[in-house]
């Protein structure tokens, strides 16, 4: 295992210290329990948005804390859901009197920990809503399984809901909007290589030199199928086909196309993928009204990419364009 770290146990706390040092103007780090909050929190009268999850997906979520996006993020150990006391402390630190929305990715651990936290927050007299993101079409959805995983749509939901909260929407409205974004977003990813969890010390899985994993999760969970490495254009098709069919997206829909890198794939390849993804969308009559290309929800140093398609409505478009100022996403200010 080759990493720029000091010790596996220290990675999360030291990275938090690095974020504090680099972005002290935007955010404030609590180390125990661990959370990252807006420097100016609580914002009186504003709905506070708190998210969190395992570390190793940077910039998500800590890099999205700031004006117009998250009020706080709770980082767990690498690929491990954070604990309820983190979410409780974060909620208490950022509640501005208008309540707190938890944005939760649909993983058993995250769901249970956020559930526990919501009980504690509510007991403490703060209004709390939870919205679950489960947009990964690679996973069979059924009442009898853990359901779909939360992936790329999380980033889009955090931006759009952050803007809604910033413009003064109330807790019920922001929560409803988050559920609407989730209902309209679909994703699928692929891995060309595994990642290595620091405390595990070796790759989570192994792929042959000519193999890729389609439908990979952001924790290195295996996906739908293993196949031979294919040209980027073909991979774009294989990722988009199930995404397009699932909602389903229809000709004339205005969409946000998000091509996301898993961490180890260079930007030049993401643009090669974007090129074909945009062509496919055009062939289906979709209007790419907005887009995002880059490493936003990653899986440590995994090589690979995911594609998220969000069907936009006028409100989402307006809120997407609203000013945002966080370490990883910034415009309009």
């Amino acid at each position: 295992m080759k990493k720029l770290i000091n010790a596996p146990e220290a990675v999360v706390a030291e990275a938090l210290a690095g974020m504090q040092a680099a972005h002290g103007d935007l955010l404030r780090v609590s180390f125990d329990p661990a959370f990252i909050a807006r420097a100016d929190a609580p914002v009186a009268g504003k709905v506070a948005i708190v998210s969190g999850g395992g570390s190793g997906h940077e910039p998500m979520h800590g890099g999205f804390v700031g004006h117009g996006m998250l009020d706080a993020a709770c980082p767990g150990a690498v690929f491990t859901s954070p604990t309820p006391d983190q979410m409780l402390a974060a909620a208490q630190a950022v509640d501005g009197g208008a309540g707190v929305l938890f944005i939760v990715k649909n993983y058993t651990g995250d769901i249970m920990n956020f559930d526990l936290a919501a009980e504690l927050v509510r007991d403490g007299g703060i209004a709390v809503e939870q919205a679950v993101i489960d947009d990964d079409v690679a996973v069979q959805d059924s009442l009898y399984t853990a359901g779909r995983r939360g992936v790329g749509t999380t980033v889009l939901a955090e931006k759009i809901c952050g803007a809604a909260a910033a413009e003064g929407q109330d807790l019920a409205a922001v929560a409803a909007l988050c559920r609407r974004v989730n209902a309209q977003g679909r994703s699928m990813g692929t891995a060309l290589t595994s990642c290595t969890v620091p405390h595990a010390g070796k790759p989570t899985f192994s792929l042959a030199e000519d193999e890729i994993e389609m439908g990979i999760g952001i924790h290195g969970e295996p996906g739908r199928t293993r196949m031979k490495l294919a040209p980027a254009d073909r991979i774009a098709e294989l990722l988009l086909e199930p995404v397009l069919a699932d909602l389903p997206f229809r000709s004339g829909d205005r969409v946000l196309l998000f091509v996301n890198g898993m961490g180890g794939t260079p930007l030049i390849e993401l643009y090669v993928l974007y090129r074909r993804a945009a062509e496919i969308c055009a062939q289906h009559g979709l209007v790419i009204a907005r887009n995002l290309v880059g490493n936003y929800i990653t899986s440590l140093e995994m090589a690979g990419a995911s594609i998220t398609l969000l069907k936009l409505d006028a409100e989402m478009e307006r809120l997407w364009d609203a000013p945002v100022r966080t370490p990883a996403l910034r415009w309009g200010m």
Partner: protein
Amino acid sequence: MAEAITLPVATDWLNRLAARYATERDWLVELDSAIGDGDHGANLARGFAAVRDKLQAAPPADVAALFRLVGMTLISTVGGASGPLYGTLFLEAGKKAAGAASLDVAGWRACLEAGVAGIRARGKAEAGEKTMLDALLPAVAALDGTALPAALLASAAAATHGSDATIPLIARKGRASYLGERSVGHRDPGAASSVMLLDELAQAAA
């Protein structure tokens, strides 16, 4: 040979568990890498080390308080799926143990039963879905008689069988469920860690 789970026995149990999960960390990580995300061993090693430290810093007054402390500590240090699940096990066990100076077989059975019920309520899983429940449910069922060490050994043995039986199952809950058919042929990491939990209790009481 202990005839009941007293405070010293329970304390010894938890200290043993901290050592056991540190030793078995890599194996549990390996199991979890195969069908999950490779953190189960690290999660439990971290959580039970914190439990050991807390017990040392502020020894609880009775078994119920100890169980509650363990539950709270696991919930606030483990994270993931196993943190709330094992945390709930101890919190619910602590409720049942309230007021008791020590636990005989029936007492412990009531605690474990309540704890496992808590896990079912929190995780919404059933028997046969390839989770820790497949080790824990047989362990509850096997707890009978009145001789404590023997009952605990039988309970741990049942858990072991249950854990072995997860290997051919298709996972329906937790992260391994994303694998569907491909989860077949692998032992569930939570079932494996549950075996250790019950095994160390039997050792502490032996």
